[in-house]
C-alpha cells in the first residue's frame, strides 16, 4: 500500500508549522485541530500553494517536492483535487462548464471519472445549465466537489468543506464524501475542526496543535490511547468501534450490532441488516466490575474485558483513564478511588458495563 509522506516547516510571524507525517494513501485522513493550529496551512503545503523551504512531499513513489534536489511541482502540475472552504465556482461559467473546466485540461488517457458518474453521485442533473452564481451554498459545494473529482486526482484535499453549510446540507454532503471514498478510491485529506466529522469520516487521524503533530494513526487507535485526554476535548474521549447491523428485535425495539469483540445492543436503528455503522463508546459511559456481577444489572451491554493499561495519575485529578481489551480497544474513565478499591492491574479480567453507545452520525450538530 502506498503512503503519503510529508515534511514541512513554515515560519510565519505569528506561528510556526512543523509537520512530519506519513499516512496511508487510502481512505479518509482527517487533519484535526483547533482554529489556528496550522491545519489549513498544512493542506496548502500539500497542494503547493505554500512552499516550505525545506519541505518534502511524496505520494507513493511520485515526489512532488524535495527541496534538497530542488523539486517543486506547482499546483497545476500536481494530480490533486482541492475543495476549498468556500466553493470558489467560476461565476462567469455554467455549472457544466465549471464541472468540465479541469476535465478538459487533463489528457484523455488520464480521465478515470466521467461527467455522468459525477452528476449521478452528486445529484447535479437538474443544475447543469444553471449559472454557478444561481445555486444555493450546498449545491455550489457539491459542484465544487464534482469539479475536483473530474480531474481524476490521485489525492483529494478538502479544507473544511462543510463549514459554511447548515445542518441538513452537512448531513447530505457528508454522505457524499463517504461514498466518494468507496466509489472512486481516491485518498482524501480532510481538514476539520469539528469532532463529529472526525469520528464519522476518518480512517486515519492527524491531530495538530500549535503547528505540531500531537497524535497520528488509525482513528480507533488514537481515540483509545490513555493519553488522548491531552489532545481530544473532554466529553469526546472514548473508543470508536466499527460495527455491522446484525439483527432487529422489534418486540423490545432494539438493534444488535456485531463488532470484532462481540455484540452490542442499542435502541432500534433504521438500518438494513449488514450495513456498517460506526459507534463511539464514551469513556465516561463505561464502568468496571472486578467480579462477575452476582446481582442483576439494568445495563444491557456487559462485556468481558482485560485491563491493558492504566493512564497516568495526576495529583488533584479525581479521574483516571483505563484502556481495556474487549476484542478491540475500549476506554473507561473511573475515579482514582475505584481504581484503588478494585485493585486494578494490567492483565486483570474485569467486566465492562457500557451505559450508552453513541452513533457517530447522530452527533452532527
Amino acid at each position, binding site marked *: 500500500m502506498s503512503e503519503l509522506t510529508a515534511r514541512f516547516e513554515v515560519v510565519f510571524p505569528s506561528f510556526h508549522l512543523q509537520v512530519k507525517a506519513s499516512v496511508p494513501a487510502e481512505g479518509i485522513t482527517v487533519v484535526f485541530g483547533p482554529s489556528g493550529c496550522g491545519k489549513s496551512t498544512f493542506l496548502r503545503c500539500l*497542494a503547493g*500553494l505554500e512552499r516550505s523551504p525545506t519541505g518534502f512531499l511524496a505520494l507513493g513513489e511520485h515526489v512532488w517536492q524535495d527541496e534538497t534536489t530542488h523539486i517543486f511541482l*506547482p*499546483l*497545476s*502540475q500536481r494530480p*490533486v*483535487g*482541492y475543495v*476549498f472552504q*468556500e466553493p*470558489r465556482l*467560476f*461565476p*462567469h*461559467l*455554467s455549472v457544466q*462548464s465549471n464541472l468540465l*473546466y*479541469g476535465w478538459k*485540461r*487533463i489528457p484523455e488517457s488520464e480521465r478515470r471519472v466521467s461527467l455522468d458518474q459525477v452528476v449521478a453521485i452528486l445529484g447535479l442533473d437538474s443544475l447543469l445549465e444553471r449559472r454557478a452564481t444561481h445555486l444555493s451554498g450546498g449545491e455550489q459545494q457539491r459542484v465544487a466537489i464534482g*469539479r*475536483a473529482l473530474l*480531474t481524476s486526482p490521485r489525492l483529494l484535499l478538502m479544507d473544511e468543506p462543510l463549514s459554511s453549510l447548515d445542518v441538513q446540507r452537512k448531513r447530505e454532503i457528508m454522505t457524499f464524501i463517504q461514498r466518494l471514498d468507496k466509489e472512486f478510491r481516491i485518498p482524501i485529506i480532510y481538514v476539520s475542526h469539528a469532532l463529529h466529522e472526525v469520528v464519522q469520516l476518518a480512517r486515519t487521524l492527524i491531530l495538530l496543535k500549535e503547528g505540531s503533530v500531537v497524535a497520528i494513526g488509525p482513528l480507533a487507535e488514537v481515540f483509545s490511547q490513555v493519553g488522548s485526554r491531552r489532545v481530544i476535548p473532554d466529553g469526546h474521549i472514548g473508543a470508536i468501534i466499527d460495527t455491522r447491523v446484525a439483527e432487529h428485535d422489534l418486540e423490545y425495539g432494539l438493534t444488535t450490532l456485531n463488532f470484532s469483540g462481540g455484540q452490542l445492543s442499542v435502541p432500534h436503528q433504521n438500518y438494513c441488516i449488514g450495513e456498517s455503522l460506526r459507534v463511539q463508546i464514551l469513556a465516561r459511559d463505561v464502568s468496571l466490575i472486578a467480579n462477575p456481577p452476582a446481582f442483576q444489572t439494568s445495563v444491557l451491554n456487559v462485556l468481558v474485558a482485560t485491563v491493558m493499561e492504566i493512564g497516568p495519575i495526576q495529583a488533584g485529578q479525581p479521574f483516571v483513564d483505563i484502556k481495556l481489551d474487549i476484542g478491540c480497544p475500549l476506554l473507561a474513565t473511573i475515579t482514582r478511588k475505584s481504581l484503588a478499591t478494585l485493585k486494578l492491574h494490567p492483565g486483570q479480567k474485569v467486566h465492562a458495563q457500557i451505559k450508552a453507545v453513541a452513533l457517530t452520525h447522530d452527533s452532527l450538530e
Partner: protein
Amino acid sequence: MTLSEVDLGPLWLTLRLAGVTVIVLLIIGTPLAWWLAHTRSRARTVVEAIVAMPLVLPPTVLGFYLLVLLGPHGWIGSASQAVTGSALSFTFTGLVIASALYSLPFVVQPLHGAFESIGRKPLEAAWSLRASKLDTFLSIASPMASRGYLTAIVLGFAHTLGEFGVVLMVGGNIPGRTKVLSIAIYDHVEALEYTQAHVLSAGLLVFSFLVLLMVYTVNRRLPIHVS
C-alpha cells in the same frame, strides 16, 4: 460656409489616435495592472505613484519632457532616428506614445481594481484544476475582469479624445498628421470660424454620447457567458 467645407480630417485622425492608444495601453496596462494587484514587492507603491502622475501633472509639463525625449536630441528620439531615419516628435507615433503615457492611469487603475477584487481565490481554484498561469489568466481572470476592461477602454479612449496640451507640445499642429480634433476646434475658434467649431464639437459630443450609451448597455449584460 457650408457643412461640406468643414475639414473632417482631424476627426478621423483623433479617432485613429484614440483607438491605437487604447490598444497600446491594454497591451502595456494588463501586465502592469496584474503585477500591481499581485506583487508583494515594496516597489509597488513607487510604481503606483508613477502610474498616477499624469493625473496631477499639468499636460504641458508632461508634453515638454516628452518633446525633449522624443525629439532628435532626446535619447528615445535619437534612437528612433538611428533606426528609422526620423525622430518621434511631430509624428503620429510620437502622439501615440504621448497619449499612452497621458492616459495610462485611466486604463491601469480600473484593471488594477478589477484584478484586485477577483483576488487569488478563483486563481488557486483554476490552478488546482490543472490550468497553467497563462491559461488561468485567459480563461478565468480576464473574463471575470470584463467590467474593468470595459471601463478601462472607455476611459482611455475618452481621455485621449479630449487631450490638448500634451498633443500640442509633442505633435504640434500639422494637418493630416498631428492636427487632432481638440486643436482643430481651438484653431477654428481662434479664427472666429464658429460654424466649423460647432460642427466638430457637436460631432464629438454626439459620438462620445453614443459610445458611452453603447458601453453602458453592454455593461448591463455582463459578465458575459464564456466557455
